[in-house]
C-alpha cells in the first residue's frame, strides 16, 4: 500500500492541473467504468474549427494510431509576440471512439497550456489512466504516439519563436 501511494504521488506531480484531475478521475474508477469515461471523452472531443476543416493538409497524421488520427497545434502569442499558450486540434472519425477518447483526454488536459507545461508531461503519462489492461498495450501505443507528436511539435515551434 505504501508503495502504491508513493507511485501515485510520483505519477501526477509533474502533470498540469487539468490533466492530473483527469488521471485522478480514471484512477478512481473500476476498469469497465474507465472505458465508459473514455467513451465520454470521445464524445466530448471538439470539432475542428472551419479554417482547419477545409484544409486537411494543415494537419499531420499520427500513423501509430490504429485508426486515422490527425492533429495540429497553434501558438497563441502574448502582446510582445512571444508564444503564450498552445491550442490543440484533433480530427478522428466517429467510428474510432478509442482514438477519439485519447484525443479528448489530451485536448482537455493540455489545450491552452504553455510550451513549458506541455513539455513537462512525462512521455508515459497515458499509462497512468489505468487502461492498459482493458485497452491493451497495442492500442495504448497510439495515445503515447499522439502525446509524443504534440510535444515534438510544441518543442519545434517554441524553438523557432524564442
Amino acid at each position, binding site marked *: 500500500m505504501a508503495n502504491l501511494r508513493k507511485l501515485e504521488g510520483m505519477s501526477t506531480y509533474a502533470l498540469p492541473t487539468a490533466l492530473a484531475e483527469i488521471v485522478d478521475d480514471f484512477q478512481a474508477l473500476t476498469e469497465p467504468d474507465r472505458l465508459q469515461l473514455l467513451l465520454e471523452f470521445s464524445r466530448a472531443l471538439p470539432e475542428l474549427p472551419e479554417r482547419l476543416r477545409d484544409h486537411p493538409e494543415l494537419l499531420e497524421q499520427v500513423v501509430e494510431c490504429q485508426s486515422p488520427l490527425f492533429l495540429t497545434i497553434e501558438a497563441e502569442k502574448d502582446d510582445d509576440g512571444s508564444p503564450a499558450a498552445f491550442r490543440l486540434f484533433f480530427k478522428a472519425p466517429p467510428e474510432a471512439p478509442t482514438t477519439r477518447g485519447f484525443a479528448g483526454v489530451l485536448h482537455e488536459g493540455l489545450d491552452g497550456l504553455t510550451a513549458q507545461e506541455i513539455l513537462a508531461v512525462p512521455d508515459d503519462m497515458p499509462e497512468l489512466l489505468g487502461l492498459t489492461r482493458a485497452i*491493451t498495450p*497495442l492500442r495504448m501505443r497510439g495515445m503515447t504516439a499522439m502525446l509524443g507528436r504534440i510535444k*515534438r511539435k510544441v518543442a519545434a515551434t517554441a524553438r523557432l519563436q524564442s
Partner: protein
Amino acid sequence: MSYPVEQNEKFTAYAHPERLVSTEWLAAAIEGGALGNGKLVVVESDEDVLLYETGHIPGAVKVDWHTDLNDEVTRDYVDGNAFAALAAAKGISRDTTVVIYGDKSNWWAAYALWVFTLFGHEDVRLLDGGRDKWIAEGRELTTDVPVPAAGDYPVVERDDAPIRAFKDDVLAHFGKPLIDVRSPEEYTGQRTHMPAYPEEGALRGGHIPTAASIPWARAAAEDGTYRTRPELEALYLGEAGLNEGDDVVAYCRIGERSSHTWFALKFLLGFETVRNYDGSWTEWGNAVRVPIVKGTERGSVPAAALSTGKHL
C-alpha cells in the same frame, strides 16, 4: 447446423454458402424473434474496443479480439477453459449458430471466426458486409447491452494444426503457395517511417520468400461484402496463381487481416488446407536467420530450404 442457411444467388456460388448471412437475412431473423433462446447469437467483434458501446445490432453481444480471445501472458489464444467460459457468458452453447460481424469489412470479425474455428465451433458465420453495411442501410442500432442466459459450453481443447501455421510450419512450407495480405508498402519493405516515428515492431521490412502479394481488402467490395466467386477466382487463382487443391498459408502483421483472406480461400473458394500464420510479420520480420525478400518480386525458395528439403 442448427439454424436455417440463407439461400441466395451470390452465396450459392461459393463453396460453403452456409458460412455467410446477409444483412437482410439477419434483420429478418431478429425481427422474427430468433435471438434470446440461445439458438442464434450475434457477436460484434471490432478493432476498436469501444465501438460496440457507441451502438450495435440489437441483441448482439461483444467479443473483443484482444482482451477476450488472446491470452494475456503468452502470445497465444485462450485455452479451452477460458473459451468455454467466454462462450457461456455470451449465451453461446456448443450447438448455437453464431453470426459474427464487425468494423472494417469484417477484418476483426473474421479473426474472431477463425478463433472460434480453432475450437471447432461448428456453425459460425459472417455477416456479409459487417457493421458498415448494416449502418449504411439505415438499420437499427442500440446501446442496450443484452444480458444473455448463460450458454452451456464444454471445455474443448483447441485444435490448431488444421488452420493455424507456426513459424516452423512456414519454413517447412517453402515450395507451396504463400499469400501476403499486407499493403504493397509493407510487402516491398519500402514503407518509410520518419526518424522518431517508429511504426510497428519489426526490425526488417519485406516479405516471406515466394509469397504472392494480394492485399486483404481486394477480396472485399466497396460495401464491405466479399467479392463474388468469379472475382475471387480472378484474384487468387489468376493473379496469385493458386491451383485447385493447393495447400496455402496466409499471413499479415499479427494474423487479423489474413483471417479475412483465410475465410475467402477456405469457405468461399473451397481450398481444403488453408492455414493462417498468426505470428506473421511481427514474428517473421524479427526472427533470427529466417530469409526475407525485399521489393516487388516474390523471390525464390531459399537454397537452404531446397537442400535440406525442410528446415533451414
